[in-house]
């Protein structure tokens, strides 16, 4: 029987766990990584197939992942099966919890959008009085962002906007296609910036924990990993109150096992890390664990057509490409009915239009589709959701997952600030599109359910005061000094920015601090 005590137990293998493993092992610290799901092998686990040969002709298998709007039948088996790992909510307040448990987690499939938070987020309360400031500022995180951007090879363009901090970019010097230039032309007099997207190029097209972070960690010889084990709860030394390991379940056999560790790093994703801590009844002397759940508003936007690109005239110079309109509300002026702000994603396509953009059917619809082919331009909001104590998760004592682990109950909803912001974004997009001479075909003011953005954050927020925050500014538990949480649960506010770069930069910073503390014997 193994009677081994590992130095650091890392739970989760996505971007944050991968960064923790890389930093710690490169400093000579031995790590054991546990992951709840299997290792995917695209050569073994996939095949190119036509939709008609699939069990449901390309439709999402009913009931398996109803909350993963992003999925189709081709990729259904990459997401966490909601029957296997259920969660609950009140019927009037649905929540989309979108999860991947394959080794590497959601880092395998993310959108690659790579933004920094600005001090409009880190110091949001100082700017508008709402909520809380982070215990750190952009200046604290800037060096870590730069190193993360180098690893991820973020392609971007410097814009010099304080709300859209520039970074350590692979320079993007390509021109915008004509349709985006036209949008930019009408946005400028309205003080709305139209900027290049910032995207992780990664290596060989992949920007994941499994190719950018974990290989370095394994190369040190200091990292070992166990896939297919589901952590049930952390264990505690009753004398010291410190965590000393974890109890886990073999995913396939249901065998219950335990492992000992000197330090535990949680990197299971915001809600799984929080669920694990709540199930372990740990590190919540503040009473705010599980509270302040935030994400971002997605789903509100428009679909238009660029008339000059119709009837076979969509050229590469005119169509294709994308842009981002970074936050422009509540910077120098004040919006009428909401605080904070949103960004607008814009993308155009030289491919087929969505048939839902036309109120037509049969041959009439086919002819429209042919005529409009290649002329599409769409927008979508990425909007800040305010951190509110009431928006929370807790353990649902009535429901367990496939391993008997109590499930999470999510109680969250958007309020007028989010709905007003969504409405403003659609009205603004319509105004810009019409000014640019585009035909607006479809619009939607209604945000997708909370969670849809896959940017759940904030349920173990960081802060200087142990009475009002779970983690300190080094992402370490105020209550338990050998417990560090490196995923997105430490966020105090989320802004509109895709959070990956911030999560990875925070994980790098927290892990380096942890290594220093371990070297000095403080942990």
């Amino acid at each position, binding site marked *: 029987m193994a009677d081994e005590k590992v130095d650091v137990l890392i739970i989760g293998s996505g971007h944050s766990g991968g960064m923790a493993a890389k930093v710690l092992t490169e400093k000579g610290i031995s790590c054991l990584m546990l992951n709840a*799901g*299997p*290792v*995917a092998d*695209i*050569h*073994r*686990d*996939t*095949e*190119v*197939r*036509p*939709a*008609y040969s*699939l069990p*449901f*002709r*390309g*439709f999402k298998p*009913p*009931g398996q992942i109803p909350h993963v*709007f992003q999925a189709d*039948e*081709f990729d*259904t*088996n*990459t997401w966490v099966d909601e*029957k*296997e*790992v*259920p969660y609950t909510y009140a019927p009037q307040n649905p929540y989309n919890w979108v999860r991947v448990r*394959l080794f590497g987690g959601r880092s395998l499939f993310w959108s690659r959008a790579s933004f920094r938070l600005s001090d409009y987020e880190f110091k949001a309360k100082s700017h508008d009085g709402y909520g809380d400031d982070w215990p750190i500022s952009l200046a604290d995180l800037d060096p870590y962002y730069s190193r993360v951007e180098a690893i991820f090879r973020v392609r971007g363009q410097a814009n010099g906007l304080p709300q859209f901090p520039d970074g350590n970019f692979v320079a993007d010097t390509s021109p915008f296609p004509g349709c985006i230039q036209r949008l930019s032309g009408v946005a400028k007099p309205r003080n709305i910036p139209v900027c290049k997207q910032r995207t992780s190029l990664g290596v060989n097209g992949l920007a994941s924990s499994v190719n950018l972070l974990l290989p370095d960690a394994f190369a040190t010889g200091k990292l070992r990993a166990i896939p*297919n084990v589901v952590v*049930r709860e952390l264990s505690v030394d009753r004398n010291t109150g410190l965590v000393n390991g974890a109890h886990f*379940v073999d995913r*396939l056999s249901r065998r219950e096992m335990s492992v000992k560790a000197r330090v535990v790093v949680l990197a299971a994703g915001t809600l799984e890390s929080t669920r694990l801590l709540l*199930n*372990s009844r740990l590190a919540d002397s503040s009473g705010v664990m599980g509270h302040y759940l935030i994400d971002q508003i997605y*789903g509100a936007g428009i*679909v238009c057509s660029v008339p000059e690109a119709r009837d076979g005239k969509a050229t590469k110079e005119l169509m294709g490409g994308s842009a981002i309109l970074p936050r422009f509300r509540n910077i120098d002026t004040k919006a009428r009915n909401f605080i904070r702000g949103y960004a607008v994603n814009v993308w155009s396509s030289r491919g087929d239009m*969505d*048939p*839902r*953009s*036309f*109120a*037509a*059917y*049969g041959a009439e619809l*086919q002819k429209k589709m042919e005529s409009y082919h290649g002329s599409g331009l769409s927008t979508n909001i990425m909007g800040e959701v305010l951190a509110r104590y009431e928006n929370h998760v807790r353990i649902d004592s009535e429901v*367990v*997952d*496939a*391993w*008997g682990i109590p499930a999470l109950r999510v109680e969250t909803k958007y309020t007028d600030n989010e709905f007003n912001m969504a409405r403003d974004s659609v009205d603004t997009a319509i105004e810009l599109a019409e000014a640019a001479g585009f035909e607006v*075909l*479809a619009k*939607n003011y209604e945000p*997708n359910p909370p969670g849809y953005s896959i940017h759940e954050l904030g349920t173990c927020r960081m802060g200087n005061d142990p009475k009002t925050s779970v983690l300190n500014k080094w992402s370490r538990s105020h209550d338990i000094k050998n417990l560090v949480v490196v995923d997105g649960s430490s966020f105090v506010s989320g802004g509109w920015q895709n959070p990956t770069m911030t999560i990875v930069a925070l994980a790098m910073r927290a892990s380096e601090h942890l290594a220093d503390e371990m070297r000095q014997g403080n942990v």
Partner: protein
Amino acid sequence: MKRRDFVKAMMAASASVSARTVLGQQAPPAQAPPVAPVSTALPAVAPAPVPWMEGLMQMKPLPLSPLSPDTVAETNAHFFSDRQLAALRRLSEIFMPPYQGHPGAAEAGTAEFLDFLIGVSPADRQKMYQTGLDRLDTEAAEHFGVSFAAVNAEQADQLLRPWLRTWMSDHPPTEPYADFINIAHSDIRAATVNSQAWSDAARVAGKEAPNTDLYWYPVDPDLRRNASQCVTPGRRPS
């Protein structure tokens, strides 16, 4: 590499290992002692007629390209009532008629496929379809004195066009009947374009089959994955 080829390669690889280490069929090095007979290496259980897997690794793959059942068979519809299914067939023909060498919904077996799909879908989806199809019939009877299955194209247009909406993915219309009309339209279109008949027509026209993509098989699936069927072996947190 195709999955099947990969599996074969893996079987061959593991076969060569097991052949060497277990069955001892590999020619031993000249100096090595003779390999023990197979029977003595096996556990003390009743022997199989022959070693179960013998010969499989050496088998030449069949020249088999699996036939999709839709090539030769039709779906037995059994979820919707006869009247509802007749209305769905007519709705499918109207929304997705044959077009420029491509099959329509009728040729693609769309209504029958949707009978299967909706039949295994959650109850709210089923109710939306059933209520919507019933209303199509009611409206056809009120306006034209026939079932929806018997309306002509012009009559169908009068019944359907007022409910057509433009909409964005994940945000269908919120009025229940418009919701049904537009979602059914979208489903009928997808089930037709994704059908084998449509793919065959595309191939004949020298185009690629639409909606061909990388399909993920279940990765190391947990055969007891339904939480509701789970028996908790361990303790609960104290």
